[in-house]
């Protein structure tokens, strides 16, 4: 009989080994999966993990997609560590896109160097505003932020849709639901020529570093971690739960809003009915695969981005149905999260207790 026993202390070795274990398990499952589908598993693995990285453009795309993921995930992680469950990053991202994009459209003709910073700040403000609603509802009425933040996603995406179908629709756009293209001064400068990679990446990395500094080294970050680990200890030490909730929501909203304006001022260059292919939700997985640790989140966002690109590549090169690529991606993420159980538990072969069937003293 196999038994999971809690370890006296979390194992560092298992912390490093568990991603490898997950990778091995994924390879095994993938091997079976692709063989059953009649594809050469090695070709499939190649399409998933090697081909997207074979060109400079591909690497640029990898980093481009990883940028919003790491940005949002690191903001969400700050809240998750404090038991503040912001599920609505997609909505906060959308609001960031609307606020920042609105500035770009209003100052369509401007060439001012202040335009881009203003857009970024407006994006942050939009995300924070959208996150402030669940924070207010939670602190004032004790409304569950999981539900309220999630529901606000739909409000935000419908608002964006309303704008690009109506007031902000490009008059010369043949009635397509999209805004005018932004002016050059409203676009993030390209970092590497011949790719779409822009200065959003160093910006995101700087935010990750700041978040790491905040959570690890500041008293406020420490107190948020206490609130997440031991709520009774937080009350005992006089850590305000209202402040924890506000901080947790606003940090997540600010990062998501920044990611949102980064998308429309970056690869999109205009407002479309949707500002992201679900980065706000994928970032939740990224945050947990990265174990809510900023450096881990950077690695997890690269992996997630690779899975996005690899999925497309596998669909194009091997004619795999998109459901199968989704299944394979899910398998990897599932194993990654599941293998982390060995950090806190060790596997033991337990002796089955011998049950005496003839008990004396039976009355």
């Amino acid at each position, binding site marked *: 009989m196999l038994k999971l026993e809690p370890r006296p202390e979390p194992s560092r070795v298992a912390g490093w080994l568990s991603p490898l274990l997950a990778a091995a398990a994924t390879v095994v499952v993938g091997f079976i999966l692709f063989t059953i589908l009649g594809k050469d598993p090695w070709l499939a693995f190649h399409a998933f993990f090697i081909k997207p990285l074979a060109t400079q453009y591909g690497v640029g795309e990898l980093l481009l997609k990883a940028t919003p993921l790491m940005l949002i995930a690191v903001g969400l992680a700050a809240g998750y560590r404090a038991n503040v469950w912001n599920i609505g990053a997609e909505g906060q991202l959308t609001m960031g896109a609307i606020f920042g994009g609105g500035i770009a459209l209003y100052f369509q003709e401007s060439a001012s160097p202040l335009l881009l910073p203003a857009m970024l700040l407006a994006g942050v403000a939009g995300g924070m505003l959208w996150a402030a609603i669940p924070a207010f509802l939670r602190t004032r009425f004790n409304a569950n932020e999981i539900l309220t933040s999630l529901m606000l996603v739909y409000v935000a995406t419908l608002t964006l849709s309303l704008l690009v179908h109506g007031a902000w629709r490009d008059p010369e756009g043949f009635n397509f639901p999209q805004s005018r293209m932004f002016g050059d001064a409203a676009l993030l400068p390209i970092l590497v020529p011949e790719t779409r990679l822009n200065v959003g990446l160093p910006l995101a990395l700087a935010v990750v570093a700041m978040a790491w500094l905040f959570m690890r080294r500041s008293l406020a970050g420490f107190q948020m971690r206490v609130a997440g680990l031991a709520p009774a200890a937080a009350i005992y*030490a006089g850590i305000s739960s209202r402040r924890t909730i506000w901080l947790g929501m606003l940090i997540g909203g600010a990062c998501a809003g920044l990611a949102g304006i980064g998308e429309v001022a970056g690869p999109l260059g205009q407002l479309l009915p949707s500002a992201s292919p679900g980065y706000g939700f994928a970032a939740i997985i990224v945050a947990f695969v990265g174990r809510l640790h900023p450096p881990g989140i950077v690695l997890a966002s690269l992996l997630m981005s690779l899975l996005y690109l690899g999925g497309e590549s596998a669909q194009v090169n091997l004619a795999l149905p998109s459901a199968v690529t989704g299944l394979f991606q899910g398998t990897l993420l599932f194993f990654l999260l599941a293998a982390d159980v060995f950090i806190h538990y060790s596997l033991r072969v337990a002796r089955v207790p011998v049950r005496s069937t003839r008990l004396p003293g039976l009355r």
Partner: protein
Amino acid sequence: MIPAGMTDTASSATPRLRLSGITKAYPSVVANQGIDLAVLPGEIHAVLGENGAGKSTLMKIIYGVVQADEGTIFWEGREVAIASPADARRLGIGMVFQHFSLFETLTVGENIALALEADRAGAELPARIREVSTRYGLPLDPLRPVYSLSAGERQRVEIVRCLLQDPRLLIMDEPTSVLTPQAVDKLFETLRQLATEGCSILYISHKLDEIRSLCHKATVLRTGQVTGECDPRGETSSSLARMMIGSDLPHARHRDAHVGEPTLVVRNLTLPAEDPFGTSLKEIDLCVRAGEIVGIAGVSGNGQNELMAALSGERTLQDSHTVTILGTAAGRLDAAQRRAMGLAFVPEDRLGRGAVPEMSLADNALLTAHRKGMVRHGFIREGVTRHYAAATIAAFGIKASGADAVAQSLSGGNLQKFIVGREMRQRPKVLIAAQPTWGVDVGAAAQIRQALLDLRDSGVAILVVSEELDELFEICDGLAVIARGRLSEVKRLRETSVEEIGMLMSGALVQAAGC
């Protein structure tokens, strides 16, 4: 039923229970090592030892909750395997746990029926409960809901529940920790009657005088091994203590108090309970002066937790003037603001409240001591934090690998010492300590009491809440009793007695004003 009339020492008889070479190891500690133990029919057998000596593990093995790695259990001379508590009950072993396992919303009868096998839980059960409970002097009404019972009455439910199964061995785990002195006397009468009828009793405790007055035999455990056997009736408390801890009991030096200004004052504090089974506080008045220790005695669950939360600021109050700290109205201030005024607090729960289990001792020092220069411009000064933790470890002789040790890796007693030390070393003006020595071994408890006295002598106002009357009588200058949410007036120690405090604990109160 057990044949009545057996004498208490049938030395030639086969032992009711015999353990041979019982060993149990956990990943980090060997809890029991080669333990031999024999309990005769009708014998009250004490298992004596400090916290962590392995008493609880041994009882769990006998009751089938855990299985021994090695060793044999003989029941009335025959080798048995006890794989579960159900097996143990079938053999005739009953256990009364230290912490009650009763459903608050169900009645006494329903709670008892739940533990019995189906054929015994019939319609005649209420009558049987009444019969058994009156026969052993444990009056119980089967129709009363459990939430309305006192701790002593709840324990009766647990005991009667065991007795209905006709036990031939009854295990009592620290049964007196929740009882008033008068209730302890009643319990002892019941246990003696049971023993006279032939039931064997394993009595676990660290209270030496109880064991001397009740038990026929004592087995002493230290660090998982049997270190001695004796007839406790022929021993003194200090000789028993020497067997238990391996050295003499340290005694606290108690100098005369130099009492100063009223420092912590509570006026007419009335506070409804937050949860349905909590206790509402009613018209509480209390005054603690600088340089004195005031104790609050009482059976747990009589409003201690609610009073602590109201004083520490974990629960803020409507009226600012109900709690005054150093002359400033503090009722509406939260815990952080009260700490900034010079309040320190040792809570009853160590893990999860007094300390964050997953965090290091350095981080746990930061938790409440961050005002002591540990933060600059909002950022943590790790050197200062680690130094504070290391100094606390050294000053209190805490067994820990260092400032980086995770709080949950410490034993309960060592973590308690760390929390007490962390709070004391903040140089508070007021210290509130709830159960400061709960679960701490005898040596460490003496050390904590001495530290409290030293702090008092340096002019700190100290409020101690404890269930251990001996402890309160040892260190306090004044003593009040809390019962059903009301607090008695503070009695000067030399003007009161254990008997009077015991009376007050059972709820016979004289209400009087504070300062």
